[in-house]
């Protein structure tokens, strides 16, 4: 599967950012995009892989416009996509609270939050359409939190000093996804979307250099199936599960983007991973995933550790003046609402000093001050479900005992490279939501993932895909085309090989080993030595996998072990690219913290002169990539060292 398309070492990345003032770029661009006339739209088949916020909103909207959409999900139902688990909220610059928000401020906060490693024009557009998303969701019947007067309520989130986060208790992702799912369901009923559940994309078909189809495995029967279209949209989420333990769902995986990468789509900034500061700490070896507590809780919660190392008293017996509220101390103006990368790193710092809970890897978070101030009922209303969840998992009551939290892999800012139209380096292959790299730079702010997923799906792709379709002549392509046949054979070979190794290690055992390597050396803090070592260790582990893995069961059956094996095979390649990218980037920015590059105060130290670029990696062969750079220009914002003090 190592076929390289028309790209080469001197290939020039073109971001296609329109000219003009930032406020009018998107408006002007929409006008200059070619349109597909309504009667012609039904002649185009669009494949959408993934049914999370980005995928479901794109599929529904494109179908409403008249395109024929084929929508794919590996779940039993589109409603299960992992967007459903987002808790906290969704940002929009509505300025309803009259506290000084604007499109420009949301744009500014997002670029700054991303440590000046995102593309200005994309971020501005995101801020610009953010308000439309809220209007759309309300029209769909999403039950957002409201004030007594009947208007929408807002809360504040990390990295912002205004309240611009809309929320639906602690289940905002669920309600937004059900909104998009309902729009998708309506189009399925109308026959404009053909829904294919329980299908996992295993290859992208390119013909004459353009994306023309996908090959999937039917997870119920094991049959390999082929689907063709005029364009392919990937909205398949992020790759945090490379760490094995993350807050992602068990089945979230990188296979669709990775296989597309191997067909020629460049992978951008793979080392930008977000470690979320407020997760439940690890309990034991058999742990399957880490659970997140919404960062919304930092509005009313205070994070602390004992001042003294070795202070192992139960938390309630540690007096106020012997506690170190380290975020409030270090970042007085943002306090507990410092951005995620900074909060996570600070937690690691105090734990490395030996001041974590019982000297281990956990810090305290409690809402006792807020309970005193606002009453237990008010806190229960805001965070009741989070507290219940905490108690269910740990067996401790957070209304009485401070919670223990620790950072965990949560989101990946890196992803397939896309231009302003959200098109990858393969013509006709579009990438939306977490699967692309475009909007969050080196660190994503809380409540911005939902915003981006829906912005891409509802308000960007419906415009930009039309331009691609209208400006290309298409020959009709059958799934009997040689490229489809070849791909199917390759997949069958790949599956056969996995099943034939019959070694001693289970898929999970190897995945856990990889996760440990990644967490230790490509996690919250990285350094040159560790990265060089880990690249070798991943290569060795990859060889071990292909020699010693034991994948039980059959190819032509529901076989969950086989599903996981294919995904782990991809992680073993992707992990190496993440480390390679982290090693290449000799600076610290956002979620990428290189220990060699920090300020005297221990903050991330960027090197704008040499690293103000998007690193877009072209796949050449397993373990071998070519680096392409997209220089980032900051025309409208002043490059500054991020300060939340």
């Amino acid at each position, binding site marked *: 599967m190592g076929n390289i398309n028309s790209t080469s070492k001197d290939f020039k990345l073109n971001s296609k950012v329109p000219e003009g003032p930032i406020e009018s770029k998107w408006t002007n661009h929409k006008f200059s995009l070619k349109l597909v006339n309504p009667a012609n739209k039904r002649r185009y088949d669009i494949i959408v892989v993934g049914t999370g916020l980005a995928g479901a909103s794109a599929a529904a909207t494109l179908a409403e416009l008249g395109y024929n959409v084929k929508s794919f999900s590996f779940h039993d139902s589109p409603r*299960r996509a992992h967007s459903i688990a987002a808790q906290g909220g969704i940002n929009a610059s509505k300025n309803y609270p009259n506290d000084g928000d604007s499109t420009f401020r949301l744009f500014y906060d997002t670029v700054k939050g991303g440590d000046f490693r995102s593309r200005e024009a994309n971020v501005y557009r995101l801020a610009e359409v953010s308000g439309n998303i809220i209007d759309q969701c309300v029209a*769909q019947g999403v039950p*957002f939190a409201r004030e007594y007067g009947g208007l929408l309520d807002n809360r504040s989130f990390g990295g912002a000093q205004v309240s611009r986060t809309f929320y639906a208790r602690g289940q905002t992702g669920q309600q937004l996804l059900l909104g998009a799912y309902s729009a998708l369901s309506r189009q399925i009923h109308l026959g404009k979307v053909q829904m294919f559940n329980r299908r996992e994309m295993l290859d992208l078909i390119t013909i004459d250099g353009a994306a023309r189809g996908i090959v999937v495995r039917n997870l119920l029967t094991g049959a390999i199936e082929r689907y063709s279209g005029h364009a392919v949209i990937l909205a398949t989420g992020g790759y945090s599960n490379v760490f094995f333990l993350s807050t992602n769902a068990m089945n979230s995986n990188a296979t669709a983007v990775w296989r597309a990468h191997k067909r020629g789509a460049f992978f951008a900034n793979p080392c930008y991973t977000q470690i979320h500061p407020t997760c439940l700490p690890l309990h034991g070896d058999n742990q399957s995933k880490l659970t997140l507590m919404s960062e919304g809780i930092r509005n009313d919660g205070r994070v602390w550790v004992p001042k003294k190392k070795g202070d192992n008293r139960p938390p309630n017996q540690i007096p106020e003046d012997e506690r170190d509220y380290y975020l409030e101390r270090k970042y007085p103006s943002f306090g507990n609402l410092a951005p995620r990368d900074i909060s996570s790193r600070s937690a690691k710092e105090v734990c490395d000093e030996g001041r974590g809970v019982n000297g281990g890897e956990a810090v305290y978070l409690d809402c006792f001050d807020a309970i005193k101030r606002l009453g237990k009922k008010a806190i229960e209303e805001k965070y009741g479900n989070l507290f219940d969840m905490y108690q269910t998992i740990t067996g401790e009551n957070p209304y009485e005992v401070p919670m223990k939290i620790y950072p965990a892999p949560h989101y990946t800012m890196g992803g397939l490279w896309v231009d302003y139209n959200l098109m990858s380096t393969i013509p006709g292959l579009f990438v939306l939501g977490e699967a692309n790299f475009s909007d969050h730079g080196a660190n994503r702010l809380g409540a911005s993932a939902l915003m981006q997923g829906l912005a891409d799906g509802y308000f960007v792709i419906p415009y930009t895909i039309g331009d691609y379709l209208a400006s290309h002549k298409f020959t009709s392509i059958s799934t009997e085309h040689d490229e489809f046949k070849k791909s199917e054979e390759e997949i069958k070979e790949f599956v056969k090989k996995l099943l034939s190794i019959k070694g001693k290690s289970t898929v999970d055992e190897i995945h856990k080993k990889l996760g440990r390597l990644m967490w230790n050396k490509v996690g919250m803090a990285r350094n040159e030595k560790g990265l060089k070592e880990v690249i070798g260790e991943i290569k060795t582990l990859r060889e071990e996998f292909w020699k010693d893995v034991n994948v039980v*069961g059959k190819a032509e059956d529901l076989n969950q072990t086989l599903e996981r094996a294919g995904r782990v095979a991809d992680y073993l390649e992707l992990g190496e690219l993440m480390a390679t990218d982290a090693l290449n980037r000799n600076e610290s920015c956002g979620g990428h913290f290189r220990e060699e590059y920090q300020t005297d105060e221990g903050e991330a130290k960027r090197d704008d002169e040499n690293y103000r670029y998007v690193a877009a990696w072209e796949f050449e062969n397993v373990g071998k990539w070519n680096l392409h750079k997209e220089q980032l220009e900051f025309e409208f914002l002043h490059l500054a060292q991020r300060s939340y003090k």
Partner: protein
Amino acid sequence: MDEKKLNIKLKIWRQSGPNTVGSFVDYNVSISPDASFLEMLDELNNSLEKNNQDPIVFESDCREGICGTCGMVINGEPHGPLRKIATCQLHMRNFKDGQTIWVEPFRAKAFPVIKDLAVDRSAFDKIIQVGGYISVNTGGVPDANSIPISKEIASEAFDSAACIGCGACVAACKNGSAMLFVSAKVTQFALLPQGQPERQKRVEAMVAKMDEFGFGSCSNTYACEAECPKGISVVNIAKLNHEYRLAKIKSKNVEV
């Protein structure tokens, strides 16, 4: 944390396919009380794979009780002995050392078994597809604050909208009824101003589809509410009946 392990006897339903006969198979595990129920099954599966045996098929995804993917009947109860949680949120500390645990798939006429503990719940999607939405296209909608909704109504609508579509209500019901699932969606939209234009059409279509799939009727045992991981109230069912009657009075469709 307590490192003392629990010894558990498991009797797990194994069935190789939709049309084969299944049976209970015995397994013994020794597990940390801090592990979740599904992590216990992960560990068991890992050891089965080590011995070249087929692991037990069960579905799960978010493992935070929100995606609705997981679900099995544990000692006779959908999602196990605790209230208001999904299977993935159940922890082994809730079981005793030496205890025997029976594990079965959700059973209902409309939820055929796929393999072992996995069942086909696609009927739920099909019910939503005939009317579980507000028919608005993307774009051209009014400003969000132009539709004021009282805090109480928004909150009540949320309570209904919290359904995760897991199907425990159906599995808990002796009639295999989907009334709780359908009523939660109907109620959410009947409460909200946005849901008014299609209020009548929606309930008629969804109930008709539900009947078509062979879900049973409600006989008020409240087992569904008791087993619902999100605590969706049976009051929704009363509201569904009310909505359905109102719709029927006005209906132009001929009643059979």
